[in-house]
């Protein structure tokens, strides 16, 4: 009896699983219907190649509306965010992405600005050090000049004193 029950439960469970995965109108599938927010979460990372510089989630044209519906369809089919993006890149080129992919010439895009910033900072640092050295050098030379002047004054005073003594 127990074995029969086991078989019965097993059969019902298997039937439910098969129904759930094969019937498109099943309750399982309806629960997974993507919302507008799910679609927009992906669409906002993409740009339509026709409407320049307008993110896909806010573009009001019919073409962009169709694209959003395509994203919804792909999500319904169980595609991941990355798969959908790759699909659009394959269909329409890398310009649909909000940023160029990090490969080939595009690497320059990411490397050049920080490299120039660092070079600028290094140049400033070097300029500062050389200016400070110049300032210190000129400070030393001014002090030397002052010392030389005071030494000269000392000798001049001595000579002056000697002359005065002799004249007296």
């Amino acid at each position, binding site marked *: 009896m127990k074995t029969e029950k086991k078989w019965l439960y097993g059969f019902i469970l298997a039937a439910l699983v098969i129904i759930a995965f094969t019937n498109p109108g099943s309750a399982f599938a309806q629960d997974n219907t993507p*919302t*507008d*927010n799910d679609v*927009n979460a992906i669409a906002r*990372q993409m*740009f339509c*190649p026709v409407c*320049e*510089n*307008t*993110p896909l989630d*806010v573009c*009001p044209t019919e073409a962009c*509306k169709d694209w959003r519906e395509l994203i919804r369809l792909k999500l319904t089919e169980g595609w991941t965010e990355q798969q959908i993006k790759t699909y659009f890149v394959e269909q329409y*080129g*890398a*310009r*649909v*992405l*909000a*940023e*160029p992919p990090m490969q*080939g*010439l*595009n690497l*320059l*895009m990411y490397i*050049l*600005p920080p490299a*120039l*910033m660092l070079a*600028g*900072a290094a140049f*400033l640092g070097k*300029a*500062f050090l050389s*200016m*400070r050295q*110049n*300032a210190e050098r*000129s400070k030393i030379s001014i002090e030397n000049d002052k010392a030389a002047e005071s030494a000269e004054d000392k000798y001049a005073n001595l000579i002056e004193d000697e002359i005065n003594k002799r004249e007296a």
Partner: protein
Amino acid sequence: MIADFGYGIFLLSFILSIYAVFAAIYGYQTNKYTWVESSRLAMQLTFPLITITSGILVYLLVTDQYHVSFIYEVTSRSMPLYLKITSLWGGQSGSLVFWSWLMSSFATAVTFRKWDRDREFLPWVVVVSSVTLAFFVGLVIFFENPFEKFWQTFNGDVVTAMFQPAGSVPFSPPDGKGLNPLLRHPGMIIHPPMLYLGFVSFVIPFAFAIAALITGRTDDRWTRITRRWTIVAWLFLSIGLILGGRWAYDVLGWGGYWGWDPVEIAAFMPWLVGTAFLHSVMIQEKRGMFKEWNMILIILTYAMVIFGTFLTRSGVLSSVHAFAQSAIGPSFFIFIGVTLVVSTALLIYRWKDLRSEAELTSMLSREALFLLNNLLFISIYIVCFWGVLFPLISELFTGQKVTVGPPFYERATGPLFAALVVLMGIAPLSAWGHSTIKTLGKAAWKPATAAVIGLLAIIFVGKVTNIYAIIGFFAVLFTSFITLYEFWRAAYARSRAQKENLVLSLWRLFGKNRRRYGGYLIHLSIILMAVGIIGLEMFQTETQGTLAQGESLTLGEYKITYNDLAIFDSNDNRNLARATISVEKNGQFVGELHPRRDYFYESQQPMTIPGVRSTIQDDLYIILVDWQPITTEGATFKVYHNPLVNWLWWGSIMMILGSMVAAWPEKDPEPRKVSSNAALAAAD
């Protein structure tokens, strides 16, 4: 006929500006001042002439003369008068005429100043201003003529030409296409004139810089003369950028004010370099340092002014191929190239004369911190420049178009902007020449403590956990407390010394040193704007849903209920779909909003107008995305919650005030003294 007259007058102003260039150079070379004076007068004459041309174009616009192709393109009978007038800058050729008119007015204004002490600058200021003017007037005359008319040939084709082609008859369409609906917004009406004013004002400091390089008078005289021009240029450019942002917020319907669009960046780049120049030039005035760097900055600012106009006018942004086919693109390219080569050659020629009069000895001195400020501004500029240029380079070398969108710019510039805000607080505390950690710490510890207390309140009371927001809030709190503390210290000291009340002391403080305290006001305004930016960038939330009548959608504390949708035609050739939405906040009814979609029949273009509930705390921003056209039973709405965004607009108003204080002419006590003495002597 009147169009021909307008064209003729414009041609005359082109000839005059070319004449002004040669007369000024000849006068300078031969030391014949009458030629220089003649060039000055020629330049002055361009203003009334271009005013007549612009007036004629406006007359053609308001009288619906659609046989002129430009008028047909930008206006229509149903448009109100004010829009017909402002359509002058709604199309390519009209905007170039408008640019030329502003340039001639500024160039003329500068020639009216007293030149007694700076007579050697005059010919070169005339040359630079006239070359710039001649370039823009030439673009209109040879490539983008707004006076071209329609002609119908015998085989029925309609062509555009300035003069009647053989075998054709005049043709006039019954109505025009009308202005692009996106441009029919108060922000967009004022936005281009403000940007252009900023652009042309920056030509004046550049003209003086070039005059200083050519004449060898490379002391700080040219920076002192152009100080006010620079602040005014900066103010106009700032207003232009802000109005552009407001327009985007109100009209483009994506819930934001700045999309890092290349057109926006084209106007932002001269602002970045100009702001760096505005700070750096103070080092030259106070310490006689970085003269060569200031020259580089003003040359770059001018180049960016022309480059910005080039980007938006040449079609290069849509494609490098469109640029090659564009009538004016290559001309712009050559002009920028020639300007840069000539300016750089002059800079190299005078390099030795531009040597600093002092040395940088302390990394915490004000000049060092200003230099750091310059590094940050120029870094942001490099990010922007490269971001705009890279898609063109990619298309040129690989044939593949790429998009450089907001994520790149936000990631690259965010930390730099935060560092700039902190620096804005520290730099005014440091002294010219030398500062130490100890002196800075002594001045900053009180505001820094207040900032930490404020930040703890934000974290624990406001429940803010986003680390970037916390860093941002610390930066704005720290800098705002320091700036306010600076105001307090100075006003308090003055009130004690002069025995005035504190408010009066504060008021008089502005009169005493307008540049400094105007600058502090601008710093405070930037802080307010930063609060708005942090609010929107870090805390914006959104949702979208399709609602049947009576259904609701919730976003945070807000609940919106879709009541109704009305679809009707307006008198000015629009079809409107206007929804009525009830808004509740925490269960309390707070009002109704009416997001709508306008469809313009003439241009066959839709326009999304959001419904916005705006308070100092936040904006609720609703867009009508879609609707059922027959039953009106269902409509899709996108709802944004934009915290603190209003601070951005209030900050903008404060910035205008601050700039006006900084640029306001100082009272000169000398003439009054002399006249009172003379009066006493006369009385004796």
